[in-house]
């Protein structure tokens, strides 16, 4: 019997019950969410279960929602069942003051660099990561650039004139 999203949802609910919430499937990809303490248990269950077999971690990324108090940072795991060719998305949310979450490096080797990247851009602190340091940005950088509290433009620039870039300045455009 082919694996369907209904079976995945059923199995997860059977095992974890009321800890799981928010099942939606936009574009045929199942999304669900749990409290952040459960992330390793969920990933391990999805990995080990003989029917589910989500044994490939496509990506880890994060999203910053500045308006959702207490759950500003979403960490998203993209998982792939290579046998049945089914993808799911698993999210955990954390407060931005305590962005601590357990590392998945014991389960997936490839999580090592993905978590470093997520730390680099969003400052998610992966507890137990063997080498949690910046991977893409310069090491001297003292902020997490993809968080929305930082403007997109480089604040250290001195040579660029706002007027030349159409933002602010003294030039008033009449429309």
């Amino acid at each position, binding site marked *: 019997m082919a694996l369907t999203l209904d079976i995945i949802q059923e199995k997860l609910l059977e095992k974890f019950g009321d800890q799981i919430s928010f099942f939606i499937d936009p574009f045929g990809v199942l999304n669900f969410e749990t409290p952040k303490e459960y992330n390793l248990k969920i990933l391990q269950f999805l990995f080990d279960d003989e029917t589910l077999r989500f044994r490939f971690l496509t990506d880890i990324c994060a999203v910053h929602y500045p308006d959702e108090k207490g759950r500003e940072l979403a960490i998203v795991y993209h998982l792939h069942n290579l046998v049945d060719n089914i993808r799911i998305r698993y999210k955990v949310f954390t407060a931005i003051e305590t962005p601590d979450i357990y590392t998945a490096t014991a389960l997936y080797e490839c999580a090592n660099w993905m978590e470093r990247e997520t730390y680099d851009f969003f400052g998610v602190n992966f507890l137990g990561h063997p080498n949690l340091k910046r991977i*893409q940005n310069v090491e001297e950088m003292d902020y997490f650039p993809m968080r929305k509290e930082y403007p*997109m*433009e*480089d604040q*250290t*620039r001195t*040579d*660029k004139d706002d007027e030349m870039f159409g933002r602010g300045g003294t030039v008033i455009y009449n429309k």
Partner: protein
Amino acid sequence: MGRPVRFNINPQKTAIKDAIGFADMPEGFEGEGFYATKFEKVIGLARKNSIWPLPFATSCCGIEFMATMGSHYDLARFGSERLGFTPRQCDLLMVMGTIAKKMAPIVKQVYLQMAEPRWVLAMGACASSGGIFDSYSVLQGIDQIIPVDVYIPGCPPRPEGVLDGILRIQDLVHNESLRRRNSEHYKALLGSYNIQ
């Protein structure tokens, strides 16, 4: 019977003086059997027409530069056909393309490895000012880390622009005083970049 083949039996020979370009003679004193000028001018003339560029190409400006090196635009006409790929032998550092902040120490190291006299050309908007990448990861112009002699505007500049930039560099090389690199002014310039 076929038409006889007509050979061009009287080909016009090109006079050698028309086939070779000569640089203008620097100003000096000339008389029968002697010619005297400043050493500086002769060296400037020689350096100007034999610049070895070091291409530091990171993105689309590098592609335009490759066109400049090709047969259509042919940088070799200006005595710069010999690209060196070691900074130790080159005179002109051509930085072409976006320089990320993580790349900045490498550009600086390449510059430091070049021997004096050395010139720097920033090609394109990104190398000159960061261009459209007004972002946390991109260096806002290479003149934040090394002194630049000539900037070429454009995104990317056309090969004609690159040739014009090379000619501007040649002007600088030609007219540079031999003492410039020892001057207090130049030392202060390098000092402002933390270069000894």
